[in-house]
């Protein structure tokens, strides 16, 4: 019997991508269904119990301003919070929270219920498509659900295959079924897929560790929340512990390399270089005498401990033997071994910058299925796919973030223009406008979209507007107010700086590296609407805007200069074969990627400026496009 249910948007998969997509679409008033294989695993963090971190913390804040839930839920389940990179540049300061995985899942599932999102347990095995347009999903068992748009967020589940040494298990995640059908269906209608690989370390028993041998590590004294909606943030501060591998560990790993799924000579999908297995680290970086292992609790009073830094696909007995060479882990016992997992992904160059398929209208893909790795990367795509799927059914203009708007913009632009051959993870250095993409100005960058697409409630919008306004006022004040020598010279002398002889604008002195805004007695910005975190952020932002003004202005000029190219549309049916004078290689890239704008075309790797000039000639566009 075929069930006939009708939804506007169906989201397939309840991981971080799917959850954000379904919740935002629902929030925007579109009839939305979340279908996932296991209701109890909705919101699960597959791997390490942490959210945020370098570049990722910035993305969580962006998702937060776009109405996402990741940061808010993480704040509620924080076990330890820390801002990384404090000793380095301010645009790379990145908040991170260790979280209670179980609590996070619970909050997510309760929230879905509380807001009235329909969640259905089932496995999607195919889609209904009419005239290149999605009109429903097919479930295992024969049921169908009709809808106008689908968001696929199948994570590592499509034909997932776990490797532990030579042992192979069909699974989507340890202990969860894999999913079969979607890859085969999409391949049959012409979409191309590939295989990627990722890995996870063993989980060990807390009681089997000699904790005294490790180095205790706590979070920040004044932790900062990931979400603007968090008003009071007094998280737990449970310690993590550092241990180190040693010579014996490395020798044993090298002796047993043949037991590793990756080194056994079998051809395997490509894994991420930035998240190497322990056998990779030992093999490729023989000069490093020791590698850091961090033991992190997975939930409050958890008996299950995550061994950060020991991702592996060695056989289980070898994993155990090797880990036992580490001082403090001599008697360590496993709850489960580390493993590598291979899975299908779809080449993201088949997507538009809205995350909608170029070939099938109404079909959106987000998360690991697009070749990324990481919760934050998944959630970033989820929020955009969710917003755009709802725009699609509502017939509204889709949301596209630019590279200068957000890491999310960088992420999607990179995905659609590069051919991934390893899982894509965000790094701050991927953003050419990194200095503009600070975690402390996510609101300033994205609030306009939140307003336009109705993504936040009025109260939050009002608060953030107020905060932005306060920041601008403070910057103005710093630029206009002068300070007398007597007011600052003592401080300057203390900092080893040259004293001033005449009154100077505060901003002028603040630009000197060792000075901070706290060195000037600025009347504080207190206001009923703002909490302490926001007030701190205002000070920090204003200080940054002054200190970096030269660089920020230069980047802005660059952005303005290339803007015209972003507005030059390349028609979908543009015939690249007509252009004779570009190299075959460039032509092939154009044909494969089908850039939507000249700006995109320019960013494709290996495309030369002369190719673009020629393209322009053929597009017959006047050199100076009239700006709207």
């Amino acid at each position, binding site marked *: 019997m075929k069930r006939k249910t009708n939804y506007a948007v169906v989201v397939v998969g309840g991981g971080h991508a799917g959850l954000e997509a379904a919740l935002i679409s629902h929030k925007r008033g579109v009839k939305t269904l979340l279908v996932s294989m296991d209701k109890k695993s909705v919101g699960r963090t597959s791997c390490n119990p942490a959210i945020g971190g370098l570049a990722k913390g910035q993305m969580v804040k962006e998702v937060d301003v776009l109405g996402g839930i990741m940061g808010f839920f993480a704040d509620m389940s924080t076990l330890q919070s820390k801002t990384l990179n404090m000793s380095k*540049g301010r645009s790379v300061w990145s908040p991170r929270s260790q979280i209670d995985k179980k609590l996070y899942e619970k909050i997510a599932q309760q929230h879905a219920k509380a807001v009235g999102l329909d969640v259905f347990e089932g496995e999607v095995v195919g889609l209904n498509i009419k005239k290149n347009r999605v009109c429903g999903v097919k479930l295992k068992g024969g049921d169908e659900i009709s809808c106008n748009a689908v968001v696929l967020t199948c994570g590592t589940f499509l034909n997932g295959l776990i490797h532990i040494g030579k042992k192979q298990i069909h699974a989507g995640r340890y202990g969860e079924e894999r999913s079969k059908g979607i890859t085969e269906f999409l391949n049959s209608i012409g979409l191309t897929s590939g295989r990627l690989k990722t890995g996870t370390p063993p989980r060990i028993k807390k009681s089997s560790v000699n904790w005294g041998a490790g180095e205790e590590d706590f979070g920040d004294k004044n932790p900062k929340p990931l979400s603007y909606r968090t008003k009071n943030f007094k998280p737990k501060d449970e310690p993590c512990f550092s241990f180190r591998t040693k010579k014996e560990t490395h020798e044993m790993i090298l002796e047993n390399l043949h037991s590793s799924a990756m080194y056994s000579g079998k051809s395997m999908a490509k894994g991420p270089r930035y998240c190497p297995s322990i056998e990779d680290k030992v093999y490729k970086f023989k000069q490093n005498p020791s590698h850091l292992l961090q033991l992190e609790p997975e939930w409050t009073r958890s008996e299950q401990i995550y061994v950060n830094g020991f991702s592996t696909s060695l056989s289980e007995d070898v994993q155990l033997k090797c880990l036992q060479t580490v001082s403090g882990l001599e008697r360590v016992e496993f709850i489960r071994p580390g493993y590598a997992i291979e899975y299908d992904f779809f080449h993201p160059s088949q997507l538009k910058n809205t995350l909608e398929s170029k070939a099938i209208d109404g079909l959106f893909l987000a998360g690991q299925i697009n070749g990324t790795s990481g919760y934050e990367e998944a959630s970033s795509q989820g929020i955009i796919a969710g917003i755009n799927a709802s725009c699609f059914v509502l017939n509204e203009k889709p949301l596209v973030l630019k590279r200068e708007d957000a890491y999310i913009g960088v992420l999607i632009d990179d995905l659609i223009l590069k051919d991934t051959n390893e899982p894509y993870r965000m*790094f701050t250095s991927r953003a050419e406008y990194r200095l503009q993409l600070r975690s402390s100005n996510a609101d300033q960058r994205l609030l306009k979209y939140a307003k336009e697409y109705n993504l936040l409630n009025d109260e939050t919008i009002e608060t953030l507007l107020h905060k932005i306004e306060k920041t601008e006022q403070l910057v103005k004040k710093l630029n206009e107010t002068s300070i007398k020598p007597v007011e600052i010279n003592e401080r300057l002398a203390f900092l080893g700086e040259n004293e001033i002889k005449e009154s100077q604008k505060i901003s002028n002195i603040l630009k000197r590296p060792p000075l901070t805004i706290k060195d000037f007695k600025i009347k504080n910005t207190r206001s009923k609407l703002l909490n302490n975190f926001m007030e701190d952020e205002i000070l920090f932002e204003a200080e940054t805007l002054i200190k970096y003004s030269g660089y920020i202005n230069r980047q802005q000029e660059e952005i303005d200069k290339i803007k015209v190219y972003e507005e030059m549309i390349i028609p979908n049916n543009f015939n690249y074969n007509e252009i004779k004078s570009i190299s075959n290689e460039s032509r092939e890239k154009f044909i494969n990627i089908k850039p939507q704008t000249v700006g995109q075309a320019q960013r494709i790797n290996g495309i030369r400026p002369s190719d673009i000039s020629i393209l322009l000639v053929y597009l017959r566009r006047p050199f100076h496009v009239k700006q709207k």
Partner: protein
Amino acid sequence: MAIVACSTPPGRSGIAVVRLSGKSALGIVKTFVGGGSLKKTHLSPSLVELVDKKRRVFDQAVITQYLSPNSYTGEDLVEISCHGNPIIVSKIIDLCIEAGAEIAEPGEFTKKAFLNGKMDLSEAESVSSIIHAKSLAGVRSGIKNLKGALSGSVIKIKKSIISCVANLEFNLDISEEDLQPNIINTTLEEVKAQIVVLESLTESFKESQFFQEGASIVLAGPPNAGKSTLFNALINKKHSIVTKEEGTTRDVVEKNFLIKQLPIILKDTAGIRGGQSEAEKQGILKSKEEISSADLVIMFNQKPQKPLSKHLYVFNKSDINTTTDNYDIHISAKENKNISKLKDLIYKRLVGDFSLGEVLLTSKRQSRSVLAASEHLKMASVLLKNGDSLELVVEDLNCCIMELDKITNKTSRDDILESVFSSFCVGK
């Protein structure tokens, strides 16, 4: 954005035509036209005086305007027909750039013409091949093989900067631990070393530019030293007035001539002394200005303790006087003694052992990139010394790479990450 280029072949000719195309073209030209104001009219040539930044007239020229869309490019276009002196042409182009124009790439005028619908679509192929020829610009100037040499040295510099960036990025972007010790010092050392390399590239450009645009030489020294006599000897013509009296030359006298293919613009100046009349004082002031802007100064009968590298010290009247001081050369302007030796010396001073075969940076565009690249490195080294934020250092290094990319292939963000991954054990 307006673009500018000399549309007559480089070198010396009777008349040179500089073209400027773009909405702001006329506005730009107005910044260096003296006297009467230019009216915006299609096709009515006007004779004007061209003035430098100090409003001094340096040439007379005919200016013709072609108003959009009735011009070659379809945009407003201004043609400046000036005297075919490479230095004048170069000055006009510099003034245009200062007022906001950009140097046109080869084929860019034609490209604009096409894009603005001034040409038939069937011409697309030939246009695109012109554009394509940009990367082969060397072919025309006959220095094709040298392109490899240039990009070779630029690639080397880039590689070193990329590895600096990779080092810094590893610390900023990936490692959660403290900064590597020494990273600031090692980066600073490397950056400084690359500044030296970039500067030597600029130097070689300057030399090659002398061939294209000429070098200016100023004759200077006390009155009556024989400057004007030498002037006439060098150009082989009685052009500057010679008398027995001190203070004969009052104003700057100029003439062009060649030393082995090398165009020289020679300037005779007023002898420098206490100054008598107002006119002479003015003349002496001008002499000093000329000295400071010259490529080479021939200094007469004055040898200071600390010789300046821009100066060539000449002892004149060696037919009647002698000296124990150590001069670069002893001559007699009057008797034409050692004049050809002097010419050799001048040539050597200006372009060294350099011959056209070694031209590396062949276009102004390239040399501007190299200059900008080295500016960014200098900025980075200041930041490093001040202990400023490393992400700003990276920003300047990235800008340096971007400038060098204009000469060689583009560097992508992946190239940098690639370099990080291959040198560091990344990930926990």
